[in-house]
Every structure is written in C-alpha cells, then in structure tokens.
C-alpha cells in the first residue's frame, strides 16, 4: 500500500480541524461510534451542524481551550492510497510543532481563511514549507461560503502567494490552489456546484493523484549503520551484517562502497531481508548488508558508493529551528544527533535570525529563542559525514540535545 504523509498548517480558526473532519467524513473513514460521539457532542454544545473538529482535537486541555496544541496524527485510506495527516497547530508559539509535523511529510496543506486572506501566519507556514523543501504544497482557500464563493477574493489570495513563491529560494515546489469550504464540503471530496469558475481538481483528487515515489527525496545512496548483527550461532558463525535503512538511492550486490568516516573500501557481498537474499535493495528499505572484506564497521558509520562520498568534516554551517524555552546562545555545548550518529557540538557562531515573514534577517543576535530560525556554525567533537539538506534530506539534517535535560532542543538543516 502506498502511504502519503501530509502536514497541515493554518492559523487559529482557519478551520483546519473541520477540514480534516470533513475529509474523514466524506471518505467514509469515520466509524459509526466516532460519528455518534461527534453528533452527541455537537448537540450538547447546541450546534445545528456537525462539528467535525471534534474528530481530531484530542487532548482534554485542547477541548477546554477549543484549540489544537500538539501534533496529532490522523489516518485514513482510499482504495488507492493510505494517508497520514500530521495536524499541527497554527499559533505563533508553536512553530516547532509545525516543523516537527512537516519534517516527515511529502506534501503539505496550508489553510487560508478567505475572509482574512494572507496573514502573518501564512507567511510563516509558507516559509517553513520552503525551509523543509516540501515538494507538493496545496494552498487551500477555506470558508469560501462566507465570501459568497467570490472568484475575486480567491484570485487576490492566489496572487499574493505567487508573489511570495517568486521570492523563495526553493524553486522545485509544486503549488496548487484550491478554493473550498470544509464546513459545507465544497471541493473537498466532491466538486462544488457553487464555484463553476474553478476548473481544477478537488483536494482529495489532487492528493490521490500524487505519485508518492516521485515526491520522495532521490539523491546519492546513504546507508547509516544502526547496529551490527552477529548471531554467533553454528550456522551463522562468521555472519557479520550491517543493519540500517537505505536513503537517497539504491544498493546492488557487487557495488563498491566506502565506509565513512574511515574511507575504507569494500564491496557489497549480500543484501539480506529476513530469511532471504536480494540482488538490489531500493531506497527506504530497512535491510542488512554484508561486505566482502572483514573491515571495521560500527554504529554511526555510513556506507556509500565510492565516488559518491559526502563531505566529511568537524565543523558545519546550518540553519536551525529552535524548539526549547531556554534560548540557544553562541559558545554553548549540545549533543548532536545526525541520523543515527552521535557527537558533541559547540555553537561557534550565531550569525543571524531569519525572519519567517520574509522580511529579511537580523544580524549578530545574542540568542535564538523558542520558535526562532537562525543561521549558526557548529564545531564537532568528531568528523561527521554529511550532505547539504537541499541535496539529501536525511543526511542533511540533525537534532541538538541539551546535555542537562536530555530534551531535543533544536533541529538543523545543513547548508
């Protein structure tokens, strides 16, 4: 089954939860007992319509405040695909959740309230989609029923977003504009009778037609070794398998590989998955690889094809999204987790804060606060083998961990 991961983003009251509830309802993904619960709660609150947002707002605190406060995962399927929606909150203070939700997404839906048009939050969402290089972005212009299904209003919003896109550094993004009403169901699953001026697809048609292979990250092959498998049984006495997941490209038996960071050369002897051997393993596969030579490979090392080596260095430049209440300051030390590899990192320079409303940068700031995005330079305790994020997402990203609290405090995108 093909799986498509989608991140949703919008401002408070853009109707994001309602949209997701509507998708679940129209694709018949709400089960009878869940539907009953929604009907019952809607009635209790005195609504004369079904409050679909009740399908997703999970935590008690959220229901009390009537807002979404964390990343919630929602699952549904159509005959052609399985969908996972990471529903992320739209408040200014929760940018970190949006980055989190978008980091595993292949597509993204940005909601805009047709009455309010493009607001500061829209800039931010659009910015994050660009920073994370989400390939397929849907601009869902919602609440069209409240602006009399006005084509003019829709076109103004479309023009503003297109202008933003023209200023963005990431040019590979597919933008799709869809006017809809989540509450009334226009252009969500079924085509709207109220907007004959709109010739495009409905939201669900668009998402169903997306080619999940195509929008995945393709680049040079990277195989970070998670653990070494040594059964030490009679049958597998000499078996020494390197377990990991293949990113970027494929591997084939016989491929000449380099072990990083040592740059030792060998050849792929076997590719194992459970009790079978294969000739070729495609990207995205968790497999076990054995090598021709008895070389020294351990957790955190990486196998790549020879002549496709990434950069190996003890320092790097990155854009960081800060996720912790305690701000980042130059000269602080953190643990860095780059894929499955761990090291220590010192912030040698905090050069700028990037304004997420596209209004430029602030140079030489003293610190980077929660939900701010900035450029830094890191010094590492050992060499890491990394790519630029724009060339390889998995090998171009890392997290920072506060050694005192063990919390994940930032996510980095290598330049």
């Amino acid at each position: 089954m093909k799986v498509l991961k989608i991140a949703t983003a919008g401002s408070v009251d853009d109707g994001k939860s309602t949209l997701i509830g509507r998708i679940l309802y129209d694709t018949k993904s709400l089960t009878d007992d869940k539907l009953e619960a929604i009907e019952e709660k809607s009635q209790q609150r005195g609504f004369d319509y079904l409050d679909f947002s009740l399908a997703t707002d999970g935590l008690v605190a959220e229901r009390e405040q009537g807002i979404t406060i964390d990343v919630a995962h929602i699952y549904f399927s159509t005959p052609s695909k399985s969908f996972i929606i990471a529903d992320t909150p739209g408040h200014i203070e929760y940018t970190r959740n949006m980055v989190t939700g978008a980091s595993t997404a292949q597509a993204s839906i940005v909601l805009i309230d047709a009455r309010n048009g493009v607001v500061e939050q829209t800039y931010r969402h659009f910015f994050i989609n660009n920073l994370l290089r989400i390939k397929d972005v849907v601009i869902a212009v919602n609440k069209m029923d409240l602006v009399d299904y006005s084509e003019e209003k829709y076109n103004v919003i479309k023009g503003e977003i297109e202008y933003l896109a023209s200023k963005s550094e990431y040019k590979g993004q597919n933008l799709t504009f869809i006017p809809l009403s989540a509450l009334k169901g226009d252009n969500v699953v079924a085509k709207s009778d109220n907007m004959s001026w709109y010739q495009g697809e409905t939201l669900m048609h668009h998402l169903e037609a997306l080619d999940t292979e195509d929008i995945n990250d393709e680049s040079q092959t990277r195989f970070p070794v998670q653990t070494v498998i040594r059964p030490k049984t009679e049958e597998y006495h000499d078996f020494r398998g390197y377990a990991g997941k293949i990113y970027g490209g494929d591997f084939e038996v016989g491929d000449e590989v380099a072990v990083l960071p040592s740059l030792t050369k060998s050849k792929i002897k076997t590719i194992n998955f459970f009790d079978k051997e294969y000739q070729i393993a495609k990207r995205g596969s968790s497999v076990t690889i054995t090598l021709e030579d008895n070389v020294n490979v351990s957790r955190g090392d990486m196998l790549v094809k020879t002549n496709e080596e990434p950069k190996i260095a003890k320092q790097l430049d990155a854009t960081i999204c800060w996720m912790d209440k305690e701000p980042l300051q130059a000269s602080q030390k953190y643990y860095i987790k780059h894929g499955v590899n761990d090291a220590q990192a010192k912030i040698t320079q905090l050069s700028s804060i990037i304004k997420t409303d596209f209004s430029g940068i602030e140079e030489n700031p003293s610190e980077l606060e929660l939900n701010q995005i900035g450029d830094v330079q890191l010094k590492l305790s050992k060499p890491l083998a990394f790519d630029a994020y724009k060339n390889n997402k998995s090998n171009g990203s890392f997290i920072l961990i506060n050694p005192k609290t063990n919390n994940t405090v930032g996510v980095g995108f290598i330049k």
Partner: protein
Amino acid sequence: MSHTTIQVDALESEAIYIFREVVAQFEKPVLLFSGGKDSITLVRLAQKAFYPAKIPFPLMHIDTGHNFPETIEFRDRLTKELGVELIVRNVQDNIDSGRVKEETGRYASRNMLQTETLLDAIEEFGFDACIGGARRDEEKARAKERIFSVRDDFGQWDEKNQRPEVFDMLNGKIDLGQNVRVFPISNWTELDVWSYIEQEEIEIPSIYFAHKRKTFVRDGMIWSADDEVVYRDEEEEVVERMVRFRTVGDMSCTAAVLSDAIDINKVVEEIRDSSISERGARIDDKRSEAAMEKRKQQGYF
C-alpha cells in the same frame, strides 16, 4: 543468489528501523507482550530486524488473570518456538498482597490494575525501554503519542512536554529512573496490522476468528458468558452466537462482535467494511471521554 529487487514497505521499514534504534540506544529493553495481534506483529517485526540473530530482548506479559485461555496457550507456544525469554508478572499477586484493590460490580475490570504491576516489573528488572504495540489510530489521546515516549519514575506521561520527533531521528537519552515506552507500529492502522498478518501468514490466537460461544448482551454489546470473571446479572440471558474478538484484552472488558469471519482473509475483508472502531468494543474507554488520557498520565501503557 536470487536476482530480485526488494522494496520494503514504508511502515514495515519504519518499524524495523525503530527496533534497531531501541537495541542500539538502550541497555535493557523489553517487549510487552499481551498475546494480542499487535504484540504478535511486533514479535515478527523484531525477528526481521535482527535476523539471523535471535530477538535480543525478553518478552514480558503483565497477566491480569482474566485472559482468554487460548491466548495464554498461544503465548507459551510462540515464545518456546522463538527461543526467547518470557517474563510473566501477575496482577493477582498485587491483589493478594493488598497493594491494589480490585473493582467490583457490573463494569469491574482489571485493566487499570495492570499499571502497578507493570511499574513494579520495570523497577524489578531495571528495564529502560518498554516496547509496546499501541497505535496512534486507536484513540484520540494516542494520536499525539511519540514513538519514543519518555516516562518518569511513576510511569507518568507529560503530554505538554513531549520531545519533538523530527525526520526519523529518535532521541533516547534519559536520566536515571526514567524509562521510555517505544511504539514501533505507531503509524499503522488496524487494517494495516490485519493485512500484514495475512501477507506474512502469521499465526494468531483462535479467538480472533469466528467461533460459537455462549454470550449475553448488555448496553448493545456482546459479552462472553463462558467464564466467571465476566460479571453477569441473572436476568441477562445467555445465548450461543457466532462471534469473534477484535482485541484479546481482559475478558471482563472485551466485547465480542457477531461475525462469520472464520479465517484471516475473511477477517481482513470484514475489517475493511467495518463500521465500528476497535476501541468501540472496549468498555473501559467508554467510561469517559478523557479515560485514556487520564490512564496514560498515571503510567498506563
């Protein structure tokens, strides 16, 4: 040498990746095994993650004493075949020693009592990672659970202070006394699990398939009348029906559904067409809307 290409399915690949991270990042992991289809699926994924080596951690069953006998028999056979260590800790022991008090009456269940036994066992063995089969599609509060979910000494979940999980990097760093609950099939749905069991031809306990059973109806749900642990009023009439169970939890709070699905293909077909979610058949979630969130804050799995 075969000349074929392997593309591991995204969800399976992700789960295997998570298992390998657990073994690499923790000293003493354990797989919490209930004998249910989700934990049986976990066992298969763990086998795949470390093959040809054996599963490198024990399985642990927190036994409520209210299990279907079919489940216990299945559990013992499976662990023997795999050659893995099985640890069993009984809720009954805590009841006998007076550490926990058993609920009585119509809706009595031992589900809540499992928490205390689980926390005791974690302390007894010093487990730092407990792998479980929870899925985000099961329930609204679960939808926000992380793959590596950090718990304190009391097993509590602090939903407002969860670590962000970006890309597939998993931060397993913890302080002494903390432990992590790990959910490798977080992103699977009930249908995904059933389809996998079908595809992999995994054996599961017989109560998942339609069979004749003495049952009675209460609150629109069908309950097993075979065993004394299920409380039944005298006026509640016992009738033999063709039923199956969608989960194999505590017998006292696991309802059956009417079904003709006698094999795995028919079960998958039935789930595909189904209109009652799996948790709809668990009475303890129906107690209140916030039931699951409260239990999790108290250290429930």
